C-alpha cells in the first residue's frame, strides 16, 4: 500500500550475537570437537547474518511486498501461462506423508508417492497422446534436454549419427541452447510473414538425413496453430527425423487436440504453466517429457512401474535409457500439484482449460484491434503477439508501454519475444481470468495508446510508483555487483555496493 521504503540487505541488519533459530540441547555425551574434526578442517569464520526471528519475518515479508504476482495482479506474461494456482495444491504438497518421505526409503514404504508419479505419467500420456512419460525433468528446458537426448539415443540405437536439429526462427531460446547442449548444430528455419507459421519450403530445403529432430512449438510462439504440423511430421518422419514439440504452449491444446495424434514424437510439458505448479519467482516447476511408445525405452531411468499385484516400483533395469537427469526423481512435490490439478479437472474439466484459454485470448485481441497491430491478424490460440512499432512515432518503444502498464497495476506482457516480431508485445491471459479483468486490461492498453500520443513522457518515465524506477542494467552488467561483501557494504543502503566488483 504505502510506497515501500528501501529494504536493506539482511546482512546489513546483522548484529553480532543476535539469534533466531536454536537447536534442542545436545542429548548425547559431547566429545571435544577437535578430536572428531581436525581443527585444520574447521572454518575460522562464517559471515552469515545474525538476526532475530522477527528480523527475518519482517525482512522477507517486506521483500515480498515488492513483487507483483498472480495472486495480486493480472499477469499476462506471454508464453508463461500465469494462471491461477489453486491453493489446495499447496495443502496437498504439505502433507507429512509426502514431505517427510525420503527418496531412498524402501519402495514398499512409499507406495502412495510412487502411485502419484505412475498415475501422473499415465494422465500426461493420455492428455498428450504420447504414452511414454517421465516426470523426472524439472523444467521445460530440462525436458527439452531430456527429449533431445532421447532422440539422439534412438538414432544411435539405430546406428544413425546425425548432427543437426532444425529450429524455427520464432522458437524460444531454450530450443537452440538445448540442441547445442546435446551436441547438435542448430539450424534455423524461417517463418511465413503472412501466416505466422513455419516456412514449409525453407523447412523442406533444410530437412535431410542429417537432421536428428525438428523442434516445433505448437501453437507457435506467435500464438498460432501450425496448420501444416501433420504434414511437417510426415515429411520429417520420411527422413527419420524426430519431431520434438516444445510443449510450453500446451495450455491451448489441453483436451482439445493431442500432439501425439498430430504426429509429434516427443514433447515436454511445463507443469508450472499448463498444470498450475506455482512459478515461485522462477521455479520449481516440472518439465515432464512425453514420447511415443517407440521412444519409451530411452526415457531417463528409473521409471515408475506397476506390478500385476498393483504395487509400484522404480524400474532401474532400462538398458536403453539415456540415464538419470536428476539426483532423485525430479520435482516430486511439484508433480504432486499437477497430479491434483489434473484429477480435479478430470475428463470434463480438462477441455475447458484449452477452450477458455483460447476464448480469453481472442476476446482480448478483439478488444485491442484498431488500437494495436497484431503481428499476424488471425484467430489466435491461447496468446497473441502485437507489433509495437507504432509507438516509435511518439519516440517510444514497447519497453515504455510495458512499464506504463505497471502504473495501471498490471504486470507487463512478455516483450521483445519472439525475436522475429519487432517491438513484440506477447499477451497470454490464461483461462482463469475473468472477462472484467480482460476488459479493464484492454481499457488500460487503449488508454496508454492515447497517452502515447498525448503524453509520451508518461510512458517514458514509467513506472512512477514502484519502489525503484527503471534500473541501470548497463551498469549492472559492466560493473557486476553480485553479492554482499562484509568489507564494502554500506549499511545506510543508499547505493549499490560499487566496490564489490568481481
Amino acid at each position, binding site marked *: 500500500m504505502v510506497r515501500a521504503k528501501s529494504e536493506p540487505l539482511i546482512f546489513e541488519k546483522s548484529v553480532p550475537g543476535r539469534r533466531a533459530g536454536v537447536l534442542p540441547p545436545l542429548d548425547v555425551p559431547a566429545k571435544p570437537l577437535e578430536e572428531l574434526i581436525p581443527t585444520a578442517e574447521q572454518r575460522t569464520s562464517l559471515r552469515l547474518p545474525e538476526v532475530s526471528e522477527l528480523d527475518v519475518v519482517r525482512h522477507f515479508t517486506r521483500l515480498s511486498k515488492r513483487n507483483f504476482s498472480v495472486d495480486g495482479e493480472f499477469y499476462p506474461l506471454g508464453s508463461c501461462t500465469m494462471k491461477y494456482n489453486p491453493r489446495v495444491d499447496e495443502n496437498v504438497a504439505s502433507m507429512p506423508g509426502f514431505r517427510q518421505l*525420503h527418496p531412498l526409503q524402501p519402495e514398499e514404504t512409499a507406495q502412495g508417492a510412487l502411485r502419484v508419479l505412475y498415475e501422473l505419467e499415465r494422465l500426461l500420456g493420455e492428455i498428450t497422446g504420447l504414452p511414454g512419460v517421465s516426470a523426472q525433468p524439472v523444467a521445460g528446458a530440462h525436458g527439452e534436454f531430456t527429449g533431445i537426448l532421447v532422440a539422439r539415443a534412438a538414432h544411435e540405437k539405430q546406428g544413425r549419427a546425425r548432427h543437426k536439429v532444425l529450429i524455427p526462427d520464432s522458437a524460444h531460446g531454450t530450443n537452440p541452447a538445448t540442441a547445442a547442449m546435446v551436441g547438435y548444430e542448430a539450424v534455423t528455419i524461417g517463418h511465413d510473414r503472412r501466416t505466422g507459421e513455419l516456412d514449409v519450403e525453407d523447412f523442406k530445403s533444410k530437412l535431410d538425413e542429417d537432421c536428428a529432430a525438428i523442434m516445433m512449438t505448437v501453437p507457435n510462439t506467435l500464438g498460432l496453430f501450425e496448420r501444416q504440423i501433420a504434414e511437417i511430421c510426415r515429411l520429417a518422419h520420411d527422413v527419420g527425423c524426430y519431431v520434438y514439440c516444445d510443449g510450453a504452449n500446451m495450455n491451448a491444446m489441453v483436451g482439445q487436440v493431442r500432439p501425439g495424434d498430430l504426429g509429434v514424437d516427443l514433447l515436454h510439458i511445463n507443469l508450472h504453466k499448463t498444470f498450475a505448479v506455482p512459478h515461485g519467482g522462477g521455479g520449481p516447476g516440472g518439465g515432464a517429457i512425453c514420447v511415443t511408445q517407440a521412444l519409451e525405452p530411452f526415457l531417463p531411468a528409473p521409471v515408475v512401474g506397476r506390478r500385476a499385484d498393483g504395487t509400484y516400483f522404480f524400474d532401474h533395469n532400462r538398458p536403453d535409457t539415456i540415464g538419470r537427469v536428476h539426483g532423485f526423481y525430479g520435482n516430486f*512435490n511439484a508433480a504432486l500439484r499437477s497430479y491434483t490439478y489434473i484429477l480435479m479437472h478430470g475428463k470434463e474439466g480438462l477441455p475447458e482449460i484449452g477452450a477458455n484459454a483460447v476464448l480469453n485470448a481472442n476476446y482480448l485481441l478483439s478488444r485491442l484491434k484498431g488500437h494495436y497491430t497484431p503481428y499476424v491478424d488471425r484467430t489466435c490460440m491461447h496468446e497473441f503477439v502485437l507489433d509495437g512499432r507504432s509507438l516509435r512515432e511518439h519516440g517510444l518503444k514497447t519497453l515504455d508501454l510495458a512499464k506504463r502498464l505497471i502504473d495501471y497495476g498490471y504486470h507487463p506482457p512478455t516483450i521483445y519475444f519472439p525475436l522475429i516480431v519487432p517491438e513484440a508485445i506477447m499477451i497470454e491471459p490464461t483461462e482463469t481470468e475473468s472477462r472484467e479483468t480482460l476488459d479493464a486490461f484492454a481499457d488500460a492498453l487503449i488508454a496508454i495508446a492515447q497517452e502515447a500520443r498525448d503524453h509520451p513522457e508518461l510512458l517514458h518515465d514509467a513506472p512512477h510508483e514502484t519502489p525503484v524506477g*527503471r534500473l541501470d542494467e548497463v551498469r549492472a552488467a559492466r560493473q557486476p555487483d553480485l553479492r554482499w561483501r562484509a568489507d564494502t557494504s554500506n549499511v545506510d543502503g543508499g547505493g549499490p555496493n560499487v566496490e564489490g566488483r568481481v
Partner: protein
Amino acid sequence: MPSFVPTTARERDEMLRAIGAASVDDLFRDIPAEFRNPQLDVPPGLSELEALRHLRQLAEQNLDLDHHPSFLGAGAYRHFTPSIIGHLVTRGEFLTSYTPYQPEVAQGTLQSMYEWQSLVCELTGMDVSNAAVYDAATGVGEAARMACAVTRRKKVLVAESVNPFYREVLRTYGGGPGIEIQPVHAWWRAKGDKDAPLTRVEDLAQYVDETVACLIIQNPNFLGWLENVDGLAERLAGKGAILVVVTDPACLGLLRPPGAYGAGIVVGEGKWTGGPVDFGGPQVGMFACKSDYVRQLPGRIVGATVDHDGNRGYVLTLATREQHIRREKATSNICTSEALIALCTTIYLCHLGKQGLREVAEQCVQKSHYLADQIAALDGYAVLSGGPYVKELVAKCPRPAAEINRALLERGIVGGFDLGRYSDVLSDCLLLCCTEVTTRQEIDQLAAALKEIG
C-alpha cells in the same frame, strides 16, 4: 468438478459475439477436424474435498519419517525446517510470480536472490554465485560443461567417492557435447586393525594432464568422509585444470569452505537446509565459482545497480550468457530454475545464522560419533574409518546390508543406505546418517535393534 474458469455460459456467448465467432469450436478451426476433441480416458473431475481425501489417502500409504526413526542420508538429509519458512514462501507474492523479468515489480524476488548469491559465496568461500541450478546432480553436470568451456578441454575426471547419482547425471550431461567422463578409482586400503576403505583423492592428481578440464570431488564424500584435499587444487592448476567440489551447506557450518582449498567451482545441494526431504524433489543446486569464470556461469545471475534517482535496486544481469539472448551459444539452456527452494534455503540460513548453522554441523558430528560408538561396541559390527566425518558413517554389518535393513524395518526403523548399491565390496555396509534431528533415543533404539538382528 470444480472449475477455475470464471467465465459463465452467458459471458462466453457474449465474448464470442464480440470476437465474431460462432462458437468456441470455431476458434479452433485451424486444427484439422480429425484431430479435434479427443476423448480422453481420464476419470471424472474431483471436488476439492474429494481431491484432498484421495491425496491424503495416498500420503498415508507412505511411511513418514516424523513417526519412524530413520538413518537414511546418502544425498538427502533431514534437517529441521523452521516454521517461518513455509509461511513466508507461500505468500502469493513469492509463490505466484514469474522469473523476475520486470525488475520494478520483482524487487522482492531479485533482492532475495542477491542474498542467496551472497550467502552461497559466504558459505563456500567463493567469489560469485548464480541464482541456483536445478539440483546438485545437474549442477555437477553444469560444472563439468563449464569447466570444459573455461579450459576449452573435453575431459572430466570424477572421483568415485562422489555421490553415484550425481555421477550418473554427470554421465548423461557429458554425453551430449562429447565430454569424456573418466571415473577415477577410489583406493581401498587397510588402516590400523580395521578393514577400512579410504578414498584418497590426493592420489587422483596423478591422472591429471593437459587434456583434463577438471577433477570433480565431493567433500565430505559420499561415504561421509572428509577428503584429504591438501595441495590438490595446486596440482590441478599446474596442469591448467580446475578443482570442482561438491559439498553440503550443513557441513559447511563447521568445515572450511572449498574456496579455502582452491576450488574453482563449487556445487552444493541447498534443499535440505530449508525444507523436508520431499521424496527427493524439488531440490536446488548451489553453484559458485571464481570470479574469472563469471561469464561462463550457467543460469540466472542477479546484480545490484541503481535507478535514475540513485536508489539501489536489483536486476537479472550478465544475460549475454543466457539462452534467450545467445540461443545456441548460451552457457546453458536453464530458464525456469528452483527459485522458491532457493528462497527457502536463504531464509533458513538467515534464521539459523552464524551460530545456528555451526551448531547444526556440530550436533551432526556429535550424534554420528555417538552412533559410531554404539555400533563399534556391538559384536560383529564395525565402523569403517576413512577419515573424519560430520554426519554419515559406514557401518560394516555381520550380514548383508539389505537383510539388516529389512529386519530394521520390521522393527519400525528405517535403516541406512545399502552401500551394496554403491559398490559390490560394500554390500555388507550401511551408510548411516545422523543430524541434529536424530535423537539419542533413536540411536539407542537402532543400536539395540542391530544387536538383536546381528
